[in-house]
């Protein structure tokens, strides 16, 4: 008997406090509707969320780990890209 696996889905959940949806993990489900139900049962048992997004894992395009160097290293020595070189007037207070 050939065992057909359900496709994999990536699960994103928005927490109680209006934050962005965050990736929480993945699970298997035959379709999107079931993926939402399964996500409800697997990832929101402790009242973790108020909204669920599901995306088929196959639909995510990822950067290649082998290109990590050329992709990210050039940003390393460029501290001037952080906005930390401005004098903030005292009256502005905490930013």
């Amino acid at each position: 008997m050939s065992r057909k696996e359900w496709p994999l889905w990536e699960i994103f959940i928005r927490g109680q406090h209006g934050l962005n949806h965050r990736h929480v993990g993945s699970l298997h489900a035959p379709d999107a509707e079931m993926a939402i139900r399964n996500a409800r049962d697997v990832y929101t048992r402790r009242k973790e969320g108020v909204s669920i997004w599901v995306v088929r894992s196959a639909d995510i395009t990822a950067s290649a780990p082998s290109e990590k160097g050329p992709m990210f290293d050039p940003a390393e020595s460029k501290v001037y890209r952080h906005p930390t070189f401005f004098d903030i007037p005292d009256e502005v207070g905490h930013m």
Partner: protein
Amino acid sequence: MPSLPDMTTPDVVALAERAAASQPHDPHLEDVDLRPAFFDWLCRMGDNTLILGHRISEWCGHGPVLEEDIALANTALDLIGHTQMWLGLAAEVEGEGRTADDLAFLRDAMRFRNLQLLELPNRDMAVTLMREFLFDAWHFEMLTALCGSQSPRVAEIAAKALKEVSYHLERSSDLIVRLGDGSEESHRRMQDALDRLWPYLGEMFVEDAVDKAVAEAGIAPRPADLRGAWEQTVNEVLEEATLASPDTRMDVHQGGKQGRHTEHLGYILAEMQFLQRAYPGASW
């Protein structure tokens, strides 16, 4: 060094007293004439959810896929949670100093009041889900009616439980349609499950003196009043699932509500009650 107060284990007795004191006043709890029927009826509600919850929990760690395993465990836990509320109120109504735990773990089979449908073995996923669906459809109508109960304590429990049961019904209906209208094998197994469970369904709608007494007190609906809405839900889902209702009688097996059970209940209780029977008062 003096020991610090125990912050992790709440004083359960004090908590229970405080919870009871904050409950709305319910004159039905002081009605001595109503007491035996009210107690029995509450045991029916609590035993239904206890026995079905136990059956469903048997899948824990054995589910066909991880996601379904967790979903079933969640459902079982919901039902055990309802049991604590129903049997807790039953113990309060009885007024003999027993607790929900005493009722669950120290009663023998003939004192259990659950429907026979709910004690039948799981067999396979088809029987498990079909049984849950047929009960969910009844449970949903029952709790909806109980939200308008003249007993505020009953109405409060029903309102809490209804949220969870609405999801149970949504999930089980969806799975009945998917499996009924699925592969050749899943269709056959679902139809077999329906045929097997059919003769046990009538018990949900049969009325006896206990049902009559709580209905006349305005606590619960008459069992037969739930039948129309139940049939509508079940027929719609079965039709979409391409499954056929048997044209045989539904009321062949009954008596669970009065304490007459199939041979299966004893085995459930043997497993469920073993620890308390062997080590009385054991807790963690």
